[in-house]
């Protein structure tokens, strides 16, 4: 079944990209879920869409080549910084930042799409993911992002964990909580931009949260939870990509459904164990 994925260059890039985001999305997802920031991933993915539409608009109107992935990344990172700003403005209602940024992202996307008089099916690929969309340049950029994200999370692991467990205590003990949090949110923005080619804008937050939700129910300790989340993430991506390709369905849909299946099995197992 895998033969096609190794025979054709574009499928190979897609497959390898899938393996990479199967690691980095659940890796950051673990911290996102325990900090109850799951919706931030959704807000950022919609801002990324604005960046992608912006790049596509430039391509169509000015006929200059501007990588949609790069556009999405820039918008996503700016969006992440804006969310943090808003969260410190509305200290008592921090979640208000999410609808503001999310609707802002969709609003901008609509305007860019209209200005460009609509796009071809490219946009559809960005919304739901695609098995044939990863170019060599995209792939190299995603490899770079992945190495960067894994490196930063490794060297800041104990700080990120301390902050996630108890923010007040982290601050009291002298950690620079705000700076660490900002780095974390920027990393999240990068991972979302990297994942969009495969899972799509609308479903990227699922890959960051569903494997974690399943792992959470059975893990002993935080490190084990990260390990299990990545395992579930990889399973979902591999099964989702292959079945999506053969069934001719955008992989975003199949990846999310496999993730939900894993989640249901984990809930079932836990029930079974208890009773």
């Amino acid at each position, binding site marked *: 079944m895998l033969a096609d994925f190794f025979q054709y260059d574009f499928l190979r890039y897609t497959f390898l990209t899938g393996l990479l985001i199967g690691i980095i999305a659940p890796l950051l997802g673990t911290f996102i879920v325990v900090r109850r920031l799951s919706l931030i991933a959704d807000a950022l993915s919609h801002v990324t869409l604005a960046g992608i539409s912006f790049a596509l608009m430039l391509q169509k109107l000015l006929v200059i080549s501007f990588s949609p992935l790069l556009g999405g990344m820039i918008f996503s990172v700016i969006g992440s910084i804006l969310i943090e700003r808003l969260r410190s403005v509305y200290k008592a209602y921090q979640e208000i930042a999410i609808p503001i940024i999310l609707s802002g992202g969709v609003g901008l996307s609509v305007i860019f799409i209209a200005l460009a008089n609509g796009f071809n099916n490219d946009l559809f690929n960005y919304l739901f993911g695609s098995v044939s969309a990863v170019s060599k340049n995209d792939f190299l950029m995603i490899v770079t992002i992945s190495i960067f994200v894994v490196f930063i999370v490794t060297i800041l692991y104990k700080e990120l964990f301390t902050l996630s467990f108890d923010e007040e205590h982290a*601050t*009291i003990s002298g950690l620079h909580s705000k700076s660490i949090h900002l780095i974390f949110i920027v990393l999240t923005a990068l991972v979302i931009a990297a994942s969009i080619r495969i899972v799509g804008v609308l479903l990227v937050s699922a890959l960051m949260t569903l494997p974690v939700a399943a792992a959470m129910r059975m*893990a002993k300790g935080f490190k084990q939870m990260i390990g299990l989340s990545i395992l579930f993430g990889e399973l979902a991506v591999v099964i989702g990509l292959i079945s999506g390709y053969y069934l001719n369905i955008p992989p975003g849909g199949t990846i999310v459904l496999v993730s939900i299946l894993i989640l249901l099995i984990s809930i079932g197992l836990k029930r079974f164990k208890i009773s």
Partner: protein
Amino acid sequence: MEKPVVSMNNVSYAYEKKIVLDQIDFEIPKGSFMGLIGPNGGGKTTLIKLLLGLLKPDEGTIKIYGEPISRFKGRSKIGFVSQKANSFNRGFPATVFEVVSTGLTAKIGYFKFMNKKHKEKILQAIDQVGMSEYTYQNIGNLSGGQQQRVFIARALVSDPELLILDEPTVGIDYENVKRFYDLLHQLHEKRNITLLLVTHDTGTMTEHATDIVCLNKTLHFHGKPEEYRSLSEMELSNFYGHPVNIVKHNH
């Protein structure tokens, strides 16, 4: 004379326009076990937040080891235990070991990894609070009293010289409260840790503390437990603003 661990000089603090602390002057001498009591809304938690650097005083100065708090660098010398046993996220998937390790994060420093020595320290701290058999259990599966001990281990692991505890026994059953005080007593006697304990439980506390401070916007009393116990009900009522029944615990 040795410098006091904490000295507050003429400290005032107000939320918006409501004055919570009014010209507070007091010191925590090294090696003391200070009990801080007072009615709800009397400014106890605000005082702790000022000491921890989470709030800045409107007026006055706070010094830690003679150093103004804004310039004080040795944050790991101060351990803090809050009412976390009641309020923390029970579902958080972290083992006791992992939770206690967060007490060392700042001390180890950025871009450095935990080594063998750190791991031994963590195990030691867990042992000290009598939680060794739960080292690799998820914290969410423990009882409130056990969790509180884990949070004390987290505060102890960085070898603090001052340990601040904010109503740590709220919501913990009588048996565990007793164990808790035994543990504090041990830390105070054997490790010579200076303690500041905020509590409602004046009965048990006055049996262990070396100094008592009563706070209700201003400092109402600062002295030894014997002196506190000899206060008349009248004086206590004045302080709390309502009649007080003293409950004596018999052990």
